[in-house]
């Protein structure tokens, strides 16, 4: 019988976020009139779960609520509704902070203190032995800067220091907000390798990043956020399939090709051609279609299932065009996509 209990316990997700809600308060112009405070952007009804050793990529346009979601999970902000569970048990903010390592997006380390001093201080804050500080410094590649004043560190070095702080106490869950900012390509690759090795040790990781190329190579699952809500969540394949990318094919060929003779107009997503070659992105290009094209005399060079990028998924999930994404940064924007009965306004 005990084996059954162990099996059941192991089946619980390491981290479970259930209908999490938090909205920032927009302070009234006159501080005394608190009743006139309004709610602004935030996070609305976010639900997802992660198993031990999974890496979740959090993507979304600026102001989508990624940082707020990470701060809620990190136990920094107090949730207004919903639950965060650790292996099935509702966790308090203090419990969350005990097992979560958090790397915020912007930490501008400055002053005359040194990376070693900072790591030692945060070891005290985390109730960890300060003699682990040098190991962490080595782990994040700051050995050469161990006694360098903070104001002399480059942006990449500062990022490494923030990561070092997040790694204090060997956290079970790691939250990384824009970790690739300021990292050079080698540091970025080395950072990804470090994350993979942490994953193999069973660390659950959530990474929010605009560096979608780095992210897509790293994550097991993705979560797409838009206006404070999770609009898609799952493996890349699941999300691609739900967003209709699973039956898209890229066909490239030489010479001339009458695409409309082989595909209906609504199945042609993209078609480009020159006198020598052509390229088409079509929906539902089965082997029969391919056979028909070849029989028709067209010269096909390649026929590959289309691998959507994270940008494609993001655009498809949010319905936004690139231009709109770039400019939709207003902090007041939070238009509920789903109904929410207990809204205050």
């Amino acid at each position, binding site marked *: 019988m005990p084996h059954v209990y162990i099996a059941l316990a192991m089946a619980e997700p390491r981290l479970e976020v259930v209908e999490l809600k938090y909205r*920032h*308060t927009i302070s009234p112009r006159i501080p005394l009139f608190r009743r006139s405070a309004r709610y602004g952007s935030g996070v609305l009804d976010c639900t997802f779960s992660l198993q031990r050793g999974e890496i979740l990529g959090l993507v979304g346009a600026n102001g989508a609520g990624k940082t707020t979601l990470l*701060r809620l999970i*990190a*136990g*920094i*902000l*107090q949730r207004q509704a919903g639950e965060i569970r650790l292996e099935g048990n509702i966790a308090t903010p*203090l419990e969350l*902070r*005990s097992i*979560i390592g*958090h*790397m*915020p*997006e*912007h*930490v*501008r*380390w*400055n*002053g005359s*203190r040194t990376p070693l*001093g900072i790591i030692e*201080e*945060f070891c*005290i*804050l*985390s*109730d960890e*032995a300060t003699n682990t500080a040098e190991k962490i410094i080595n782990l994040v590649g700051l050995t050469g800067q161990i006694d360098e004043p903070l104001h002399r560190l480059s942006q990449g070095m500062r990022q490494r220091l*923030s990561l070092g*702080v997040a790694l204090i*106490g060997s956290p079970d869950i790691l939250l990384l907000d824009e970790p690739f900012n300021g990292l050079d390509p080698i540091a970025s690759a080395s950072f990804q390798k470090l994350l993979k090795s942490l994953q193999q040790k069973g660390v659950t990781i959530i990474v929010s990043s605009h560096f979608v190329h780095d992210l897509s190579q790293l994550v097991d699952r993705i979560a797409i956020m838009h206006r404070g809500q999770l609009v898609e969540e799952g493996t890349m394949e699941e999300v691609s399939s739900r967003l209709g990318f699973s039956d898209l094919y890229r066909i490239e060929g030489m010479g001339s090709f009458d695409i409309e003779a082989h595909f209906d107009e609504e199945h042609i997503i993209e078609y480009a051609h020159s006198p020598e070659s052509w390229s088409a992105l079509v929906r539902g290009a089965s082997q029969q279609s391919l056979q028909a094209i070849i029989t028709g005399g067209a010269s096909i060079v390649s026929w590959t299932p289309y691998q959507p990028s994270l940008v494609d998924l993001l655009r498809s999930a949010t319905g936004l065009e690139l231009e709109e994404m770039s400019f939709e940064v207003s902090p007041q924007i939070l238009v509920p996509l789903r109904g929410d009965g207990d809204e205050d306004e």
Partner: protein
Amino acid sequence: MRMSEIKRILVLASIIRKEHMFSHRTKIMLPILLLFIPGFAWGFSDPNVVLPGGIQPSNAMEILYYTSIGVLFSATIFAVLIAHDGISKERISGVLELRLSQPMSRSSQTTALVWGHWQSSFIPILACSILAIVAIFVRRDMLPTIVEMLCFVVAVGVLVLWYTLLSLIASSYATEQSTSIAFGIGTWFLFTFLWALVTSMVAFASGVAVGQPNDPEWIQLEGYLDLLSPNGVFHHLLETQMPTIERGVATSMTIFAIALWSIAPWYILQRRIQHLSL
């Protein structure tokens, strides 16, 4: 080897202290502190000094009492300058977010913050106060009693604590540096310069003759209104060792005001940090 919560608070406070004690702002303020605390004591220790009203300080505690004017001008602004960005600076840089994501409770972190900033201000001021006592001894060959010295040190300590707490509260509200320093200096200005105006206005509204040093009604009103100002409570505490000064405020009232001025801002700051969103 893990540390106890109290030891962690003390270590974190010592980190803040070390950072501030050797900072540029301390180096800039140190000559001002020296001028205003031991400098005033040196001046008031002159055997031939005659203060306005024909007052001539006759013992060490009286000299310390008059030196306290220098403490009010310099120590308070020093505490404000040390603590004004205690929270806002880290909030702006993002370090506060990292700090609040650590498993140490926010109340312990706040205690370390207050303790560290208080030490950073109090230690140089204490050193200056000791120099003031030395100056009195050198010029007048007299020393305050142990109780008088203790009273002076405690009074300076709580005064620095109140200004530290007020500055940290302001800093917790500020999202940029200028707001917190404006609040800190504004508070200092109100209690150091404008309080006399507030007292006069209240006296006028109450029908009490303003600024009559021999009018018992004015003296009592001024004494009670001083309980509402940290500088006034500081003077009330010093006056417990000055038998010649009687302003009609019971010692128990002074002790109550000290407790209130210490507990209320501390509570507000703790509550503020508990609910702080970034």
